[in-house]
């Protein structure tokens, strides 16, 4: 990918003019985001810039006040859309993992396979085992979340999402709650997903990962998309003063 807004093929995520207000505060002010198939887009920006809200709009965990979102051809905001059917094509990974504490790792992965996709127990169990093996947790399948490290929990959460074979994956600060030594394992799984051609939108502060793996970096501030481009451009020669200031701040750490 050479530049922003890929022209062809048709973007798998096409969000246009998104507005979101919480009371008097406008968190998103007419944001557009297009993501091509197999693309890895990083969204960066200072806290309160609206990047998480934007991500959460993309599977309608947050309801935008205005705008349109198409994901894999489905009009997400249309009242006629079955949002539960749409969401099985959109995997999401959260900062706080959000594993179900009363279920083993395997049961966590199996739940939606059984109840949403209607697989029987044996098939769901097999798919779950494969997904957990893929994230390197074949040995931990029968463990409960509280018996797993943060990094392992996050990988179970990734397995839970990819087991449904989503068309896109959304990551909301997937490594922010992890101890530094556990970050690598999660990033490795994300890197492998990327190599397998998964379309990914990532909100994160892992700048080294963004530099190495992202096709495109979007910089947001105050509810607006200020700048976007390949990582080399955003990190090397940012156009906007706010972007420059943000990159300087990050690099100091």
């Amino acid at each position, binding site marked *: 990918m050479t530049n922003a807004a890929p022209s062809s093929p048709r973007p798998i995520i096409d969000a246009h003019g998104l507005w979101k207000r919480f009371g008097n505060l406008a968190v998103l002010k007419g944001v557009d985001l297009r993501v091509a198939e197999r693309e890895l887009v990083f969204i960066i920006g200072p806290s309160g810039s609206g990047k998480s809200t934007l991500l959460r709009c993309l*599977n309608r*965990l947050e309801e935008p006040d205005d705008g349109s979102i198409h994901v894999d051809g489905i009009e997400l905001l249309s009242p006629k859309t079955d949002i*539960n*059917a749409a*969401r*099985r094509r*959109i*995997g*999401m990974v*959260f900062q*706080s993992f*959000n*594993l*179900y*504490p*009363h279920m083993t790792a395997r049961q966590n992965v199996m*739940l*939606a396979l059984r*109840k*949403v996709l209607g697989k029987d127990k044996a098939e769901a169990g097999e798919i779950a085992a494969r997904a957990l093996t893929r994230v390197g947790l074949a040995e931990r399948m029968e463990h*409960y979340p*509280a*018996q797993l490290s943060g990094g392992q929990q996050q990988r179970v*959460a990734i397995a*839970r*999402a990819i087991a*449904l074979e989503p068309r896109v994956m959304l990551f909301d600060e997937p490594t922010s709650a992890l101890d530094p030594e556990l970050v690598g394992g999660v990033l490795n799984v994300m890197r492998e997903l990327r190599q397998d051609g998964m379309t990914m939108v990532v909100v994160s502060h892992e700048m080294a990962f963004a530099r190495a793996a992202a096709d495109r970096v979007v910089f947001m501030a105050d509810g607006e998309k200020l700048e976007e481009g390949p990582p080399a451009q955003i990190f090397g020669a940012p156009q906007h003063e706010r972007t420059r200031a943000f990159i300087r701040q990050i690099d100091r750490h």
Partner: protein
Amino acid sequence: MGGFESFLFSFFNPKVMATYLPMIAQGFGLTIVLALLIVVSGLISGLALAVLRSFGLRVLNWGIIFVVDLFRALPPLVIIVLLFFGLPAAGISISGFAATWLSLSLVLMAFAEEIFWAGITAVPKGQWEAARSTGLTFLQTLRMVVLPQALRITIPPLTNRTIAITKGTALGSVVGVAEILGAAQSGMAFSGNPSPLTLGAIAYLILFIPVVAFGRWVETRFAWKR
């Protein structure tokens, strides 16, 4: 007769106890039936109200909160007396047993709803979001992700409250229900000796100590691995 002998004669009179044991045993059976009915109807309706409340429909929730606060505020005996002596005036006659069952069920429903509701709201929002993001519906999420966690948190307070309210079956004696206390009072009246009351107290211990132990067992059984 010395003081101690007089005490034994009054409270542990073997002859009186033998005579009224069958009566107390009948009361024991009636108390169990009444308590079970109250526990089942009170907990189920309390859970149903908490689930309804989770839909977040404002007007419905005002109604639920009003009903719940009403039955938490009223003393159970007042409700029993009101139903038993008040309803006939409105042309509906109700047995003492039914009045006691209905009153205590409503009280348990109200407290159970508050406990279940507290349990549901104590489950982090992220659990809802994770489940919904995989395509589970609101009800599936509630049933398979949120309620199992909420119920585990609620078991200790719920057990305590359930025991406290089922002990209220003794209030049925006021409206002529021959449960343990009612039977013991009759026995005392017939014999002129309080020993049947001792039998009644023993009967309550036999009934509720296992319930307390069961509550403790349920707590450990439902704790998930850490």
